[in-house]
């Protein structure tokens, strides 16, 4: 289903034209990366896609969808703990019962490693923690379109991995549009890359998430042998045999660690997608 179809959209803010001649379509399930230089209009385009900006001129057809938005910088004026803020957003969303969104908060907090800071005032949390809270509030919304403006800002490596996993685990119908300069994130997630310059789209190409992962088939004697091993996904083929999906850059380290722990490597193969 096509979510947005626009033709020659222009957006002016004051006297400045931030978007011009935008003919953009967004379909269900697409993972769109917006790239371009600083000040090229990426964030403006993202906000326009989400309906936060309205076009000054041009033709747009939008489906009524639920939008989740993650700003580039989590607001600093929020006087609440992560738990209080997320519960407030969950209450506003009205998409699920209180029990459900409370459970979702706990689940995402565990996934992002925030369980220990849920009750710490946000102004005393690190930038990365606030960024994770910003991501979780959008996910609570169970959006049809998820908009992420520089979502990796402040995230550590584990946080980035978690974000990739979470995006991959979203329902297939969910469209994700994100602004980023991180090449590996684009390669991991994007099915389409839109390049913007001077407020207009200069390139729009379909891509496939590159083979940035490899699968290691390994025999283990005990599941505890995998504790602390850095892998994205683990599939137990049998009690003793597991297939680990590992980022390409970490394959050597993982292999060395498995061998040191007495595991037996069967094969290492390329993985097209997660």
């Amino acid at each position, binding site marked *: 289903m096509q979510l947005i179809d626009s033709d020659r959209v222009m957006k002016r803010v004051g006297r400045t034209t931030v978007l011009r001649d935008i003919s953009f379509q967004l379909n269900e399930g697409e993972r769109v990366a917006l790239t371009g230089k600083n000040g090229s209009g990426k964030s403006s385009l993202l*906000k326009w896609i*989400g309906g*936060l*900006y*309205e076009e000054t001129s041009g033709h747009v057809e939008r489906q009524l969808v*639920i*939008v*989740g*938005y993650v*700003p*580039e*910088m*989590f*607001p*600093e*004026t*929020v*006087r*609440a703990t992560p738990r*209080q803020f997320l519960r*407030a*957003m969950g*209450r*506003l*969303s*009205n998409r699920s019962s209180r029990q459900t969104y409370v459970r979702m908060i706990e689940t995402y907090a565990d996934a992002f490693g925030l369980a220990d800071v849920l009750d710490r005032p946000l102004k005393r949390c690190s930038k990365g923690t606030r960024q994770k809270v*910003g991501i979780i*509030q*959008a996910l609570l*919304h169970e*959006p049809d379109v998820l908009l992420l403006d520089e979502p990796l800002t402040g995230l550590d490596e584990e946080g980035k991995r978690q974000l990739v996993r979470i995006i991959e685990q979203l329902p297939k119908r969910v469209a994700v549009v994100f602004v980023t300069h991180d090449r590996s994130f684009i390669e991991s997630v994007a099915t389409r890359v839109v390049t913007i310059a001077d407020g207009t789209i200069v390139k729009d190409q379909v891509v496939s998430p590159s083979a940035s992962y490899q699968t290691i088939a390994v025999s283990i004697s005990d599941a505890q042998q995998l504790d602390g091993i850095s892998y994205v996904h683990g599939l137990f083929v049998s009690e003793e045999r597991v297939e680990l999906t590992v980022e390409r850059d970490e394959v050597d380290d993982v292999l060395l660690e498995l061998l040191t722990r007495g595991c037996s490597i069967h094969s290492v193969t390329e993985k097209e997608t997660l």
Partner: protein
Amino acid sequence: MMGRWTIVQLQSFSRSYRWVAPYVSFLAMLGIVYAYRGLPVLSSYAVTSVIVYVFAVWLTMLVWTMEQTSERHIVQTHVASKRTYWYGKGAASFLVVCPLIALALVVPLLAGNFRETGPLHWYVLASMSHVVLAWCGVVVGTACYGTGLATKKYTVLVALGLIVYSLSFDVLIETYPFVAITSWVTPPLFRVLRHLTEGESIVWTSWIVDGWFIGCFFVISFYMLRHAFHRYES
């Protein structure tokens, strides 16, 4: 949805402690107004109505400036409508003024500051006066901080100017009749306050005429401010 958004705002507002300065200042003003005993009922309530009006502008400003742009965008995606966001701001602005209205009405009664008890309709008039002037304050505050004016450096001066203009409108219109053209968009304070000083009986025809102007003011300002907010947010 609007109800939930209003509740979330009230919770944020209470946690922010931004209410402390206006509430404490208001209590101090009440203390000054009711420093003496044997005061006339309606005239005293007229004074506190004006004070509520001024503080309503201040509190509305605080409610509108609670969020940064990024938080506003987050909330707007959750409430799924900029219009709901705007309505919620108006509701929250009035609700944070309500405690001041209650204090203004109740404190002099509890403290026994009035020279007489007076008929029930005095207190009905006083309550209506406080509520209407509170909404006038919300309108002025929204005009300054819920529109594109909010981004200007001189917004506070504009708010103060509007307060002074509306308070002195009754006098200005006598001296400069041409200002009457702004009467539809000027908070009709004098149309409310003159009923608190007219004596012991309600002049219903006068109330109906003034009620009509007050209603028109709120309808016109509602649509104008909503449109201005929409243009600003777009």
